[in-house]
């Protein structure tokens, strides 16, 4: 049942997409109130992991427990209830393009609560103040820069005061200032509100600076885990290649196939 230390427990989880194995016997635990990062090269299914936690996808084998409940076995209404306790920051922001910033943040409140419009206004402005965009509440999503859109999306993810917020590649494609703002926001929101944060990212520097605990996944398996210090001093060559950003190593530089000499010799005939 409910585990006081860990909010999300992924046990012996397998996930297949068609014939392709995305996850192969993965075990991950996410501690309450901490920032946990999941890192790995592009295309290793990091985003898929967040979708599995939120029940947008179902594991092929094994279990994904959130607050002790198996996400894969929940019925529709239970799933919908659970998701209200979750906020997710999508890579694209996923703001509703047809309504303005204020309405975007008010959306989940209007949908799931019976609060008066006056109270909703206070809450929305409060959330926007927290991300520094109170004065942008009238703008439409198309008028926002990439960094601003992500902050608005963050304010929306927090609207219902979730227990857990998941960030899908929050730093990708951001300028240094926007990046610094996001790092600061993620940390301060996590600590001030006592929520649990899960970050999926391949931006090394920022993630190492912010996470309390990191999982590194590659080839469908967890190849390393630990605090940022532990990972930086790891012996494992695969983890070191990733953490130090080396072009060649256990993840080869060359796309696998026949040796170069074969091609060169074939040219002669």
């Amino acid at each position, binding site marked *: 049942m409910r585990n006081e230390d860990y909010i999300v427990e992924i046990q012996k989880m397998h996930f297949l997409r068609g014939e392709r194995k995305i996850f192969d016997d993965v075990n991950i635990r996410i501690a309450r109130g901490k920032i946990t990062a999941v890192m790995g090269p592009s295309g290793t299914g990091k985003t898929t992991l967040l*979708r599995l936690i*939120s029940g*947008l996808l179902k594991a092929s084998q094994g279990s994904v427990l959130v607050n002790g409940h198996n996400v894969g076995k929940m019925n529709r209404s239970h799933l*919908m*209830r659970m*998701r*209200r306790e*979750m*906020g*997710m920051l*999508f*890579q*694209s*922001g*996923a*703001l*509703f*393009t047809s309504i303005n910033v204020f309405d975007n943040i008010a*959306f*989940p409140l209007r*949908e*799931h609560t019976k609060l008066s419009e006056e109270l909703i206004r206070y809450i929305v402005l409060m959330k926007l103040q927290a991300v520094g965009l109170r004065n942008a509440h009238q703008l439409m999503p198309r008028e926002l820069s990439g960094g601003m859109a992500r902050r608005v999306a963050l304010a929306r993810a927090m609207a*219902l005061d979730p227990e857990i917020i998941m960030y899908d590649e929050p730093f990708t494609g951001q300028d240094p200032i926007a990046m610094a703002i996001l790092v600061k926001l993620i940390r301060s929101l996590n600590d001030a509100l006592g929520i649990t944060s899960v970050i999926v990212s391949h931006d090394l520097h920022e993630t190492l600076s912010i996470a309390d605990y990191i999982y590194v996944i590659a080839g469908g398996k967890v190849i390393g885990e630990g605090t940022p210090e532990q990972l930086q001093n790891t012996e494992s060559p695969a983890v070191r290649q990733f953490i130090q950003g080396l072009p060649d190593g256990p993840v080869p530089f060359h796309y696998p196939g026949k040796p170069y000499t074969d091609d060169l010799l074939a040219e002669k005939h």
Partner: protein
Amino acid sequence: MLKVIQHLGHRALHFFLTIGRATLILLSSIIGRPRLKLGFKLLVEQLYAVGVLSLPIIICSGVFVGMVLGLQGYTTLVRFGAEQAIGQLIALSLVRELGPVIGALLFAGRAGSALTAEIGLMKATEQLDGLQLMGIDPLRRIIAPRFWAGFYSLPLLSLIFSAVAVYGGYMVAVEWLNVDDGAFWSNMQSSVDFHEDILNGVIKSIVFGFLVTWIAVYQGYASVPTSEGIGYATTRTVVYSSLVILGADFVLTAVMFGGLG
């Protein structure tokens, strides 16, 4: 040979799978406890986007189609001295066939493609997933109002198309080619039957509205969420809708006017 059969079988399976999926999506979006106040607001928004914004193209095309009918009909009928029957010809061909069919084809091109592109874009920008993660069912919230809006709009648009086209025909036949005004209207009145002609035409456009909107929302919802995928989905909406409209029109006409019913 074996390969051809294999391929055919594969395509057939794929076809039925798609139909099944589309039916499931449609049913799960429209069946369920309605939220009257919110549902009405969403429906009105979509009626505007799907119906009102299609009006200009429907009206313009209606005028031209009516004018062409007037002109073509006149040049043929005048040879037999029967140009008085032009009102009848215009009205019958419009309410029975051209109104529902051309209206639906235009609707597929204007509103159907827009629906597919909009839903596809919402999918590509993760807005549909975002809704789901907020505990809101995108089928009920996004698909259902769009489906109903299309379903309600097309019959009305087709009627407007026919009415405007009759007026277009009137302009050419009476104002320009000097067919007698009274004969134009009275011939039309005596030959067009409300049940037989107008109601059957409306039934046709209800069926077309259902099919076109269903195809459009399904293609959007099932599209591959990339710019390329949305492009393909939009094309498919227009192509499939056009084929389905013409095919269904034949079947309906056979049942309604072909003595099969």
